[in-house]
């Protein structure tokens, strides 16, 4: 368990103030914030790599605020990996154990374990500058895990990867965490990444923590404009991707089932952009696979466009033009049908 109490960090241009976080043992904790919010510095402060102006950091019930970083047993993986360029992949991974003068057979064992775990046995002798982004990422992860840290800090681990690799690595991070249960703090600016991975999420912005909660709390009950800005752009749901008997793939939430196009399976999240949803007074017979009946519970006027909240349940936010709304005489309390294509549902 790691606790950050009233942390105050000076970044020169601005400050991080009154940072309070509690991360439970074995938890996957996400710090979500825009670029330049001081997320990396927050991680470095926790690791003892950046001077703290005031406040305390507690690790498993002990105060470590002024402890040397090498005595904390907290590992960090930077966004751009920062591998030791003069050492091979294997030497990078074993650096920590060699520093601790562990016996040879332990080195071999740990290296075997990590290269199996991450599937990197074939690149062990290569130099970091010959590795791809995804491979460097895995070596950096293996290096961080080699010392069996109490806390693993991940600094935007997915943002340096291209979109194709990202989805796979995100899945692997989840699996890795399920297997190892190492307490993890992961910082990111990507809302969907935060939702997909986090047990709890802290939203960092304007130098302080705006909100802490479960993914559901963050996207259903944003406590400020700042947090809402992250959450508002999409309809986000928690549920499970399953195959139905008829061979179709659906995303099943508590209340409803959405037809989707995806190769992913299991407990996941889904989002639908408000502008991809069609509203009609009668059900539509069309190529769109998802069509539901619901009630308009709220209309938010944005000038030439309007945001309708349609409750099925759950709530869907839909974007329509003012002309459509007037022509179809949409009013609060009215029953309407919402329709969107299976390919408009994003699973993550």
């Amino acid at each position, binding site marked *: 368990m790691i606790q950050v109490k009233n942390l105050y960090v000076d970044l020169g241009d601005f400050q991080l103030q009154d940072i309070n976080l509690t991360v439970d043992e074995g938890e996957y904790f996400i710090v979500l914030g825009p670029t330049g919010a001081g997320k990396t510095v927050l991680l470095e402060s926790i690791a003892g790599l950046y001077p703290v102006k005031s406040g305390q950091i507690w690790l498993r019930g002990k105060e470590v605020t002024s402890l040397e970083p090498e005595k904390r047993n907290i590992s960090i993986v930077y966004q751009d990996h920062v591998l030791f*360029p003069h050492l091979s992949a294997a030497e990078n991974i074993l650096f920590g154990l060699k*520093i601790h003068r562990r016996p040879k057979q332990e080195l071999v064992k740990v290296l075997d374990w990590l290269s199996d775990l991450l599937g990197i046995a074939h690149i062990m002798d290569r130099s970091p500058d010959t590795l791809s982004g995804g491979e460097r990422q895995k070596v950096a992860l293996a290096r961080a895990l080699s010392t069996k840290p109490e806390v693993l800090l991940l600094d935007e681990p997915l943002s340096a990867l291209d979109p194709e690799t990202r989805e796979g690595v995100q899945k692997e991070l989840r699996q890795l965490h399920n297997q190892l249960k190492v307490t993890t703090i992961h910082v990111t600016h990507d809302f969907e990444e935060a939702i997909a991975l986090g047990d709890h999420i802290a939203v960092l912005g304007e130098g302080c923590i705006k909100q802490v909660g479960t993914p559901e709390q963050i996207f259903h009950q944003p406590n400020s404009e700042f947090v809402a800005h992250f959450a508002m752009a999409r309809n986000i749901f928690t549920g499970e991707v399953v195959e139905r008997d008829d061979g179709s793939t659906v995303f099943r939430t508590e209340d409803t089932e959405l037809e989707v196009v995806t190769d992913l399976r299991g407990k996941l999240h889904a989002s639908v952009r408000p502008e991809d949803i069609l509203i009609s007074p009668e059900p539509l017979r069309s190529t769109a696979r998802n069509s539901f009946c619901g009630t308009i519970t709220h209309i938010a006027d944005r000038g030439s466009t309007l945001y309708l909240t349609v409750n099925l349940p759950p709530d869907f936010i839909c974007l329509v033009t003012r002309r459509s709304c007037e022509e179809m005489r949409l009013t609060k309390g009215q029953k309407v049908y919402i329709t969107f294509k299976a390919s408009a549902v994003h699973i993550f």
Partner: protein
Amino acid sequence: MVKKWFATNNMTITFILLGGIIFLFIIVPLLKMIVASDPKILLDTALDSEVINSIGLTLYAALIATVIGFLLGVPLAYLLARFDFPGKNLVEGLIDVPIVVPHIAAGIALLFVFGRSSLAGKAFNLIGIDFFDSIAGIVIAMLFVSIPFMIDSAKEGFKKVDVRLEKVSRTLGASPWQAFFKISIPLAWRSIVAGGVMMWARGISEFAAVIILAYHPMVASTLIYERFETYGLDYARPAAVLLILVCLISFIVLRLLLYRGQKT
């Protein structure tokens, strides 16, 4: 039709002519002196024990100065590369002062501080070190004029090492010393060695500061100067050629080793 707009205009031709003058001015004297030497006389000079001893002394004293420069200059370079503090610009400026101070005057200043009648001189005398007319004097003269090369080069080398590499090593359990010796030094090694080679070469080439502190034992430059003063150009030339050859060959070999190290 092949055309290179940037190479055939009259400006580049003029520049090649002007640049050629200064290039020839640099290489012709050295080349001509080496080429014009009678190999037999050169061989005789190379067997002259006085010449051998003085060249050996020069290389040796410069090497000691370089080792001291390494031990004291590298830590300072690391501090300057890593930390900011008020007055850092001033410190960096002062470190480069030996390059711009006239070497004769620098020699006088060193003698004033380290000479037999000075406080430091007397203190060192107690532990058996005398800086006047001694190898110790030659070493500190060389050290003074050449240390900026080591500090500046090592500093640039350390600056190129991502500080986060040290930070990562710390999280993996390395103490500051381990981070320094296992990460910073190996990664800055080429710059440090390059600085050491420059420092050594600069030490060998020093004359003014050396003769103020230690005319004897004679370094190669002093020997050549004395022969020039006493017997004239023709007698001084073979020793000068020999010294130039030793310097250039050592320098080329060291640079090649350095570049080979870069590739592997």
